[in-house]
């Protein structure tokens, strides 16, 4: 039996009815990760459109491994954040560890990102990698990105310690989006 997957439709401009701001804080004191140890980090950035204008109505979702690189442990590595009027998003989480991949290889630490919004008939999928990470050099997915666009998925450490990655939906410096 084969049933084609249901068609995607846009989340539209009113998806905030399912926005729960505490979901952007994966280390929320009342959440499942409060007692889990690891390097506490913030991930932040803006989402802009083809005119460079901020996208103020985007649902940003993240999914990541725990600090040991596992998806099976107690850490709940999911977050959702609404961009604000300036197109900004911000998550607080633990830095993921290297995720095991085929053979004995490891993927560099990374965070999966999905974007849903008005004007997106289906989600845009990308990843955030951490600049300066040793394993970046041998990460198969990072290396599949043409060198001149690789920077669009590499978060840089900001002066306040947060990891910053701006997402550009279209045009100059357009983020590399994946078909998975």
């Amino acid at each position, binding site marked *: 039996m084969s049933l*084609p997957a*249901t*068609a995607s439709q846009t989340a539209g401009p*009113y998806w905030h009815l399912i926005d729960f701001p505490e979901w952007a804080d994966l280390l929320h004191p009342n959440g499942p990760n409060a007692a889990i140890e690891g390097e506490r980090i913030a991930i932040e950035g803006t989402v802009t459109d083809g005119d460079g204008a901020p*996208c103020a109505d985007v649902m940003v979702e993240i999914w990541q*491994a725990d600090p040991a690189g596992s998806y099976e442990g107690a850490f709940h590595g999911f977050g959702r954040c609404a961009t604000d009027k300036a197109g900004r998003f911000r998550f607080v989480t633990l830095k993921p560890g290297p995720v095991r991949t085929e053979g004995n290889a490891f993927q560099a630490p990374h965070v999966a990102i999905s974007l849903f919004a008005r004007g997106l008939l*289906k989600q845009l999928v990308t*990843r955030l990698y951490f600049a300066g990470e040793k394993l970046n050099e041998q990460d198969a997915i990072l290396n599949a990105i043409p060198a001149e666009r690789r920077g669009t998925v590499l978060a840089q450490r900001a002066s306040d310690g947060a990891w910053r990655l701006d997402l550009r939906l279209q045009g100059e410096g357009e983020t590399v*989006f*994946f078909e998975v």
Partner: protein
Amino acid sequence: MSYRQPAPGTQPPYDAPEYGSTHKRHPKQPLLRIPQTLTETSAPRMRPALYETTHNLAKGPGWEAQGERITVAGRVLDEDGRPVPGAMVEVWQANAAGRYNHERDQHDAPLDPNFKGEGRVFADAEGWYRYTTIRPGAYPWRNHHNAWRPVHIHYSLFGAGFAQRLITQMYFPGDPLLALDPIFNCVPDAAARERLVARFDLDVTEPEHALGYRFDIVLRGRDATPMENRA
């Protein structure tokens, strides 16, 4: 294991000129096809202990929303027809007058203080989900002259792999606005569009209480690699 790619024509494009908001928001570079890793094939374990359920959007202690009460039930399946047990289903919608409980919705239709328009349920072991709400109203939008969205309920689903993540909309049968709606019609395949339309179901209908609609959702299935196709 990995999830299969969509059947041709069954998913909308990013760039859809008839839907104006896509104009500045679609990537102009082709997507980069990447292999699915654990990151894509694993998923957050969404569960009622972490995410409180709301089975009834229409009524709560001391309040009841205005509108035609309906119950929606269906199954969350994968492309092989297997249930996706525990799938989390989030829904949100306009009220009976076609107005969202949202500060940016400026449509001149009354708000209902008793209708928030948001709910969350989980599929059971056989993939069944069910909730009660009110039938939402149609509402105008500014995509083009005299544009109206057909009656719909938004759905957000989490399956067993993050690659199965889906946001979609459920429409209602017989709605004359469907033929005119750019968002609905961005799905090229007519049968795929038709599957976004719930059907009236007397078995879901609750006597003396609520009309019933059936809406099944299919998430991406596992990629089958039949032995006979291997070199």
